[in-house]
């Protein structure tokens, strides 16, 4: 009786471990923190892509509208795939796209914009990646939705696709 109980407990324990590890195999390796409460955009000062003049965050996000903040770089291949979607999003009058050019060569970045078009109403330079850390970004590409109260309400890690664009459209409605 005692041996049977031990065997049953052992089988149950092994079964439990198997289920836990098997479920773990399906989990994504990429860790994305949940934004549980809306976070305010960081207060910062950054160089403007075109004029090289310093701009502060208040000036960049001055209007009471939704903003889409997109972190991009000319060397980033997935940025090229999401660019046409950003171009389409930029036609929407109720939002403004802010580009953060991440750890890039300025000339290459300008060539990128000239070749693929400029969806951004404002591009700021993040040479050392510090500004992206202030936003809580991992790298490029990454997209944030900032609401009318200047709070980050959603974050998309990696290139955006049509499904994400639909989500963005639903949020800004």
């Amino acid at each position, binding site marked *: 009786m005692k041996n049977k109980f031990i065997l049953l407990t052992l089988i149950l324990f092994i079964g439990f471990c198997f289920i836990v590890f098997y479920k773990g195999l399906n989990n994504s390796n990429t*860790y994305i*923190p*949940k934004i549980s409460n809306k976070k305010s955009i960081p207060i910062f000062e950054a160089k403007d892509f075109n004029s090289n003049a310093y701009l502060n965050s208040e000036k960049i996000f001055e209007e009471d509208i939704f903003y889409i903040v997109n972190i991009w770089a000319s060397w980033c291949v997935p940025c090229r795939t999401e660019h046409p979607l950003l171009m389409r999003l930029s036609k929407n009058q109720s939002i403004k796209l802010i580009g953060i050019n991440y750890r890039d060569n300025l000339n290459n970045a300008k060539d990128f914009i000239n070749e693929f078009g400029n969806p951004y109403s404002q591009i700021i330079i993040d040479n*050392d*990646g*510090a500004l992206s850390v*202030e936003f*809580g970004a991992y*790298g490029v590409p990454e997209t944030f939705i900032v609401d009318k109260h200047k709070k980050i309400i959603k974050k998309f890690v990696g290139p955006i696709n049509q499904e994400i664009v639909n989500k963005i459209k639903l949020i800004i409605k």
Partner: protein
Amino acid sequence: MKILKIFMIIFLFIGFSQLKSDEKSNELKSKILKNIRCLICQGQSVYDSESDFASSIKLIVDKKINEGFQEYQIYDFLREKYGDWIIYDPQLNKNTYILWLLPLLLFLVGGAIIHKIIRKKNEK
């Protein structure tokens, strides 16, 4: 000549104390960086990694130390941006109760079992 000597001593003293404080801030920086997980790397701390993400974090930590931030304030800053996962040493909160209390619980249960076995043996 005497004045020159005094100036030399003051100058050397300032130089040494500057060196000492640089050494201290470097030690603090290394300690913090070793306790921060590189979120885009496989099992590496920010200290060990050369990725873009890690170098940005290194820069931010350096900046915060120079601004006079305390160690816990830097962790709080990063935790706010990236969640608890970024710090190797997890805080005690409702999500980590099991993590912290399970070893203690196992220790107590194990101790109780051993105690019971010994008592049984002694009774025999």
